[in-house]
C-alpha cells in the first residue's frame, strides 16, 4: 500500500496536536538527583541499540510503502527534529540555570519537541520543497 502525500498531510495533524500536549507536561522542579551508575548507562545504551536497530528495520517497511518524494521529506524533517531537540535541550538548560522556577525538560516534553519539530518541518518541506 502506498501512502499518499495528501493522506500524510492530514494524518500528521494528529501527532502535531499530540506533541503540543506532550510539551505541556508538568515537569519536576525538585527532581531527586541520582548519579548515573554503570548499570544505568549499560541498560540505556543496550536498550537504545535495540530500538535503533528495530527502527532501521522499520524504516525499510516505510521506504517500501512510501514514494521517494514523501520519504525524502520525512527523512529531512527527522534530521531537523533531531537538531531541534539537541538545541532545545541545551537552550532550556541555560533557561533553567537563569530561572530556577522553570521545570527541567522531561522525556515527555522532549518527545513533544521532537514530534512538533518533525511535523512542522514536514509541512515546511511540503510547502517550500526539499531543495537546498
Amino acid at each position, binding site marked *: 500500500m*502506498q501512502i*499518499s*502525500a*495528501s493522506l500524510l498531510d492530514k494524518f500528521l495533524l494528529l501527532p502535531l496536536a499530540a506533541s503540543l500536549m506532550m510539551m505541556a507536561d508538568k515537569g519536576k522542579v525538585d527532581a531527586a538527583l541520582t548519579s548515573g551508575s554503570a548499570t544505568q548507562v549499560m541498560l540505556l545504551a543496550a536498550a537504545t541499540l535495540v530500538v535503533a536497530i528495530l527502527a532501521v528495520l522499520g524504516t525499510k517497511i516505510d521506504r517500501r510503502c512510501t*514514494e*521517494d*518524494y*514523501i520519504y*525524502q521529506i520525512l527523512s529531512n524533517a527527522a534530521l531537523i527534529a533531531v537538531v531541534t531537540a539537541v538545541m532545545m535541550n541545551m537552550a532550556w538548560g541555560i533557561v533553567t540555570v537563569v530561572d530556577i522556577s522553570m521545570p527541567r525538560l522531561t522525556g515527555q516534553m522532549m518527545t513533544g519537541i521532537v514530534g512538533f519539530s518533525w511535523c512542522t518541518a514536514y509541512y515546511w518541506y*511540503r510547502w*517550500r*520543497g*526539499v*531543495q537546498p
Partner: protein
Amino acid sequence: MKNKLKVLRAMNDWSQAELGQQLDVSRQAINAIETGKYDPSLPLAFKIARLFGMPIEEIFDDGFEGDKNA
C-alpha cells in the same frame, strides 16, 4: 534542477494525477518536480525518460555548462 516535465505532460494532454498514475507516484510528487521543489530519484528519472521516450538530459537540466563533447 530545471525540467521539461510540465511541457511534455501538456503535449500528451495528461493531468498531473494521470502522469503520476503512469509513473506510480502521487500527483503531489509530480507537482513538486514540475515546480522544482524536488528532484526525482534516479530510478524515477529513468522511468520518466522511458515514458516520454527521451534521454534524461533532454528532460532534466542541472545547469552544468561544461564541454558536452568532452
